[in-house]
């Protein structure tokens, strides 16, 4: 019947292909060359709206017109939300109307694609512009920072107390400007999905201690008591330590801003009551609070508190937005609770590091005869006894990359960075192998590192050793979970032993 409707059209204006099943239609769309689809929602291998979804997913740029029954207009409307350009009701299609509907749909789709493209270009331009401007701002700021610190450090002669005081104000503002530039860059990256995270096995308590120490001066200057309050023996999290500090700095800095003299700011960490896999970090203040209708909106980009008289200078309104991005990207959630004049509590969650989860593929490997698991320990040290943080981070990165290549099979795991143990840096690999296999691995690691002298040339040393884990008995009645827990506990104990013995050697 449809063919008939096109018969009045001049030859060559439309070329019709008719298929009976959704699977055939999808195959045809995937091949390309189709300009428009007339899609029946009642195909034998399709299922209502899902038909539209699947066709649209496979060729989002090809316009779809849905064919539907008389009593199904509501469904057709939904189909348009799923990406259909138009709908036609079967039995009510007029001869002339059909080609017109097709032409309109094709044209609409083309206009939409064009608009999308323009929007993408505009976003890209804005991102590039912001990124460029921010970098350019950093150069003059660097020069100001250099010379202010040259004066402050007495490199150009002694300073009178008043001169020192003024230069310190200048330096504080330089640092503020620097952090604003970093915020701008972070926001640009967040929007283009390019925020880089380097998650590892790390301590949230350490981050809290760092931030409380860093901002203690600012709190004291305002007569505010800044305290850390942590549960004992908190588990490590799997997150980016620099980003945790960044989030806490924003939250504590805000808390200090909005709390009057004599107030208290507390930073807490505890395990989550509702979810044992999460750790909760909290920043609570005794400040002016937030009205309840704003507790969601404050995380929006460019949000500014309406009454900032107490807070002093306005910022860019990006801090909390960036926090939300950073928390979400690490698998957590952030929220605020408050009532006006009763202070505010900002909380966010981070995933607790789970050794069982990481090693499950290695330990629970099916059909593995003897359950031999070996812990390979690689230690990066320095002949000079001291490594700067930047140099250390870079060598660790290189060593990790090389170790990754030494893994025996897909099941072996190189554990995430486990935190520093004195001047040395430890890497752990959980490997499914017996003692002969572990000898082979050691040999392979040595060969790989020897072939790459440049990796370790800067006065660094690498030592490697293996510990095989005792046979862990698995009773027939026991579940895989229990077995995994046992193995994890053993590996964990060995690793802790290794780390604490290194710390003892290094006198920390």
């Amino acid at each position, binding site marked *: 019947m449809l063919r008939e409707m096109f018969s009045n059209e001049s030859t060559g204006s439309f070329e019709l292909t008719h298929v009976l099943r959704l699977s055939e239609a999808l195959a045809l769309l995937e091949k390309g060359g189709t300009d428009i689809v007339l899609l029946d929602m009642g195909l034998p291998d399709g299922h209502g709206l899902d038909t539209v979804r699947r066709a649209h997913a496979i060729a989002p740029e090809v316009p779809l017109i849905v064919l539907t029954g008389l009593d199904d207009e509501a469904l057709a409307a939904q189909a348009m939300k799923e990406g259909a350009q138009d709908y036609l009701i079967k039995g009510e299609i007029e001869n002339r109307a059909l080609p017109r509907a097709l032409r309109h749909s094709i044209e609409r789709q083309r206009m939409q694609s064009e608009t999308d493209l323009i929007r993408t270009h505009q976003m890209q331009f804005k991102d590039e512009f912001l990124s460029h401007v921010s970098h350019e701002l950093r150069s003059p700021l660097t020069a100001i920072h250099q010379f202010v610190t040259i004066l402050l450090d007495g490199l150009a002669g002694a300073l009178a107390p008043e001169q020192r005081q003024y230069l310190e104000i200048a330096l504080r503002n330089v640092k503020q400007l620097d952090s604003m530039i970093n915020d701008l860059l972070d926001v640009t990256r967040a929007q283009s999905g390019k925020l880089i995270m*380097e998650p590892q096995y790390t301590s949230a308590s350490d981050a809290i201690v760092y931030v409380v120490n860093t901002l203690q001066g600012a709190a004291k200057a305002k007569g505010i008591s800044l305290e850390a309050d942590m549960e004992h023996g908190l588990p490590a999290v799997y997150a980016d330590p620099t980003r945790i500090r960044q989030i806490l700095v924003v939250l504590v800095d805000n808390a200090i801003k909005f709390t009057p003299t004599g107030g208290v700011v507390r930073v807490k960490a505890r395990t989550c009551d509702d979810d044992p896999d999460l750790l909760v970090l909290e920043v609570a203040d005794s400040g002016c609070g937030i009205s309840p209708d704003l507790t969601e909106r404050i995380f929006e980009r460019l949000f500014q508190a309406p009454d900032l008289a107490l807070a002093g200078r306005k910022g860019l309104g990006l801090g909390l937005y960036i926090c939300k991005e950073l928390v979400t990207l690490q698998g957590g959630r952030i929220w605020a609770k408050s009532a006006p004049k009763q202070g505010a509590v900002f909380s966010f969650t981070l995933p607790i590091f789970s050794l069982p989860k990481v090693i499950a593929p290695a330990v629970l490997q099916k059909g593995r005869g003897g359950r031999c698991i070996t812990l390979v320990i690689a230690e990066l040290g320095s002949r000079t006894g001291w490594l700067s943080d930047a140099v250390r981070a*870079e060598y660790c990165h290189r060593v990790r990359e090389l170790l990754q290549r030494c893994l025996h099979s897909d099941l072996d795991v190189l554990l995430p960075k486990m935190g520093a143990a004195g001047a040395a840096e430890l890497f752990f690999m959980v490997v499914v192998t017996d003692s002969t296999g572990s000898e082979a691995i050691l040999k392979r690691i040595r060969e790989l590192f020897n072939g790459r002298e440049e990796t370790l040339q800067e006065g660094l040393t690498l030592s490697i050793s293996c510990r095989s884990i005792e046979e862990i008995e698995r009773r027939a009645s026991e579940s895989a979970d229990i077995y995994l827990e046992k193995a994890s506990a053993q590996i964990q104990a060995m690793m802790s032993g290794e780390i604490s013995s290194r710390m003892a050697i290094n006198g920390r």
Partner: protein
Amino acid sequence: MGGKKILIVDDDPDICQGMRVRLEYSGYATCFAADALSGVAAASKEEPDLIVLDLGLPAGDGFLLIERLKTHPTLGVIPIIVVSARDARANRERAIKAGATAYLQKPVDNAEFLAVIRQALVAFTSVSLPE
């Protein structure tokens, strides 16, 4: 570290002067180049013990300069420290792969700057000594 010479490659004269004051106060000698092209020439002529370089340079990118220096028969052993306004997270890996020893982001913390230089010089010297 007295007497060690450091080549600074940066096209911003103010930043160069700031580095000069800071480094000379700590007992280093300094020399300069303002673009990627003259960077290699300056390194050949001055024979520095260490090179501090920026990434955004005229006449070729800083990465190119690192590669040129690292593949040079005699200059290849000189440790390179990148000090750039470009984001460390996005560029550190590439700089290190090209052969740089460390990557610092501007504005640089002075204590860290001096520590990284000292570290690189100590390591360089200890490697150069016969075992």
